[in-house]
C-alpha cells in the first residue's frame, strides 16, 4: 500500500485534505474568538489554555504551520503548472459562460488570504511568541482580552481584516465544496455539501467581521 503525491489527482486530494484541515482550525479559532464578544473571562480562559498547553503549542501548532505552508506552496505550484499547460492564450476566452469567477480565481482569493495571514501573524502570533519565548515575561492569564481589544482600535486595520474575510468567504465558497469533489464524494451529496458550504463560508466570514467591528465599536464607546 502506498500513497504517492506524484500524480495530479493525489496532489488534488492532498490539497483537499489540507484545506479541510485548515477549515477545522478556522472553526476552532472562530469558536474561541466569538467568546470575546460575550465574556472576557471565558475568552481569557480559552486563550490561556491554547497559549500554554503543551500539546497545543508543540504538537498542534507545528502541524498547523506545516498544513498552512503545504496548502499555499502546493496551491502556487499547481497554479504554475496549470498556467504552463497553455502556452498560447486565447484572444477571446469567455470563462463567465461556463464557470464562476470564484472558481477561476482561487489563486487571487488565496493570495489575499495569505497576505492577511502575514498581517495576522505580525499582529498576534509574533508578539505572542516574543512575549513567551524571547522576552520570557511572566504569564498573566488575564492579558489576552485586553490585547485583542487593543488590536482592533484602528479602523484601517479592521477594514483590512474585513476585506480579507470577504476574500476568505470567496475562497471557501469554492474550496469547501470542491474539496469533497476532489475526495471523490458521490454526486447525490452535492446539494447538501453546497448548502453547508454557503452557510459556512458566509457565516464564518461575517462572524469574524462581526468580532472585529464589535471590538472597534467597543473601543470608541470606551474612549
Amino acid at each position, binding site marked *: *500500500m502506498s500513497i504517492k503525491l506524484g500524480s495530479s489527482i493525489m496532489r488534488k486530494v492532498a490539497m483537499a485534505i489540507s484545506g479541510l484541515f485548515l477549515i477545522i482550525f478556522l472553526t476552532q479559532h472562530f469558536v474561541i474568538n466569538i467568546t470575546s464578544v460575550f465574556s472576557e473571562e471565558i475568552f481569557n480562559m480559552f486563550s490561556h489554555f491554547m497559549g500554554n498547553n503543551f500539546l497545543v503549542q508543540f504538537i498542534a501548532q507545528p502541524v498547523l504551520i506545516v498544513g498552512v505552508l503545504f496548502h499555499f506552496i502546493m496551491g502556487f505550484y499547481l497554479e504554475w503548472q*496549470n498556467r504552463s499547460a497553455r502556452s498560447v492564450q486565447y484572444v*477571446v476566452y469567455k*470563462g463567465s*459562460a461556463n464557470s464562476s469567477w470564484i472558481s477561476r480565481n482561487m489563486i487571487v482569493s488565496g493570495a489575499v488570504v495569505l497576505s492577511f495571514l502575514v498581517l495576522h501573524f505580525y499582529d498576534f502570533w509574533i508578539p505572542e511568541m516574543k512575549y513567551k519565548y524571547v522576552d520570557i515575561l511572566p504569564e498573566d492569564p488575564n492579558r489576552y482580552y485586553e490585547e485583542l481589544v487593543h488590536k482592533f482600535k484602528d479602523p484601517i486595520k479592521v477594514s483590512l481584516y474585513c476585506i480579507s474575510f470577504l476574500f476568505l468567504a470567496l475562497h471557501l465558497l469554492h474550496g469547501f465544496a470542491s474539496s469533497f*469533489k476532489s475526495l471523490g*464524494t458521490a*454526486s447525490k451529496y452535492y446539494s447538501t455539501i453546497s448548502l453547508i458550504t454557503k452557510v459556512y463560508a458566509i457565516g464564518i466570514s461575517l462572524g469574524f467581521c462581526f468580532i472585529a467591528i464589535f471590538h472597534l465599536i467597543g473601543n470608541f464607546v470606551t474612549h
Partner: protein
Amino acid sequence: MKLKLKIWRQENSKSKGKMVLYDIDNVSPDMSFLEMMDVLNEELMIKGIDPVAFDHDCREGICGSCSMFINGEAHGPDRYVTTCQLHMRKFKDGDTIYIEPFRAKTFPVIKDLVVDRTAFDRIQHSGGFISVNTSGNTQDANSIPIEKANADKAFDAATCIGCGACVATCKNSSAMLFVSAKVSQFALLPQGEVEATDRVINMVKQMDEEGFGNCTNTGACQVECPKGISLDNIARMNRELVKAQLKK
C-alpha cells in the same frame, strides 16, 4: 447575414500565428458553422488565398473531429453540440465572430484551426480498453446482469467523443473529464473490473506525462462538453485512483 470573421491563421506548427479578418456575405441562418466555413474557403480559393484548415469528418456530432473555439467557447455559444451542429442562427447579422483552435500545450497547432489531439489516443492506449479473449469463447455481454443505474452511467460516460472541448475550455487545460469518462465507462461494468486498478493508474500517469493541467473543479468542462459528460465522472476517477493506490 453579413459577418466579420476573425480567424486564427498559422502556416504550420513552427510558425507564429495571428488573427486575420475576413468579411463574408450571404450567410444563411440555416447553414451549419462548418458550411459557413466551406463557403468562406470557396471564396478564399477563388481569390487565390490559402483556405482555412479545420478538422471535420462525420458532420453529425459523433466523430469528435471538429474543434473550434468560437467567441471564447469551445464549439461556440450553443450547448450540447459540436461545431458541426452549431448553426448560424445562433449569431446575428453584422456580428464579429472570433474563431480559434483548441488551445493547450498538449494540443499543438498543426495548421490554422487543426490541432494535434493524439495525446488523447496515447491516454486511451495506456488503459482505455478491456482485454478479452476473442478466439470464439467470448461471453455475450447481454448475458451478464448489470444494475440498470450503473449501465446508464456507464453508457453516459461512453458517449464521450474525445473532441477535446474539456481541455480547450478548462482554464487549466485539464483532461480530467475526458480521462474520467473513459475510466468510468469501464469501472461501472463487470467487464472492466479485472483491470480497474492498472487502468486508472496507467491512464492518469499518461495524462500527467502528456502535460495536461490539474483539475480545480470549476465545472467549465461539463458545461461546454457537447455530450454533457458529468463532473461526477471526475469524482469517480478520484475514488478509483485512491482505491487503486491503496491496493498497489
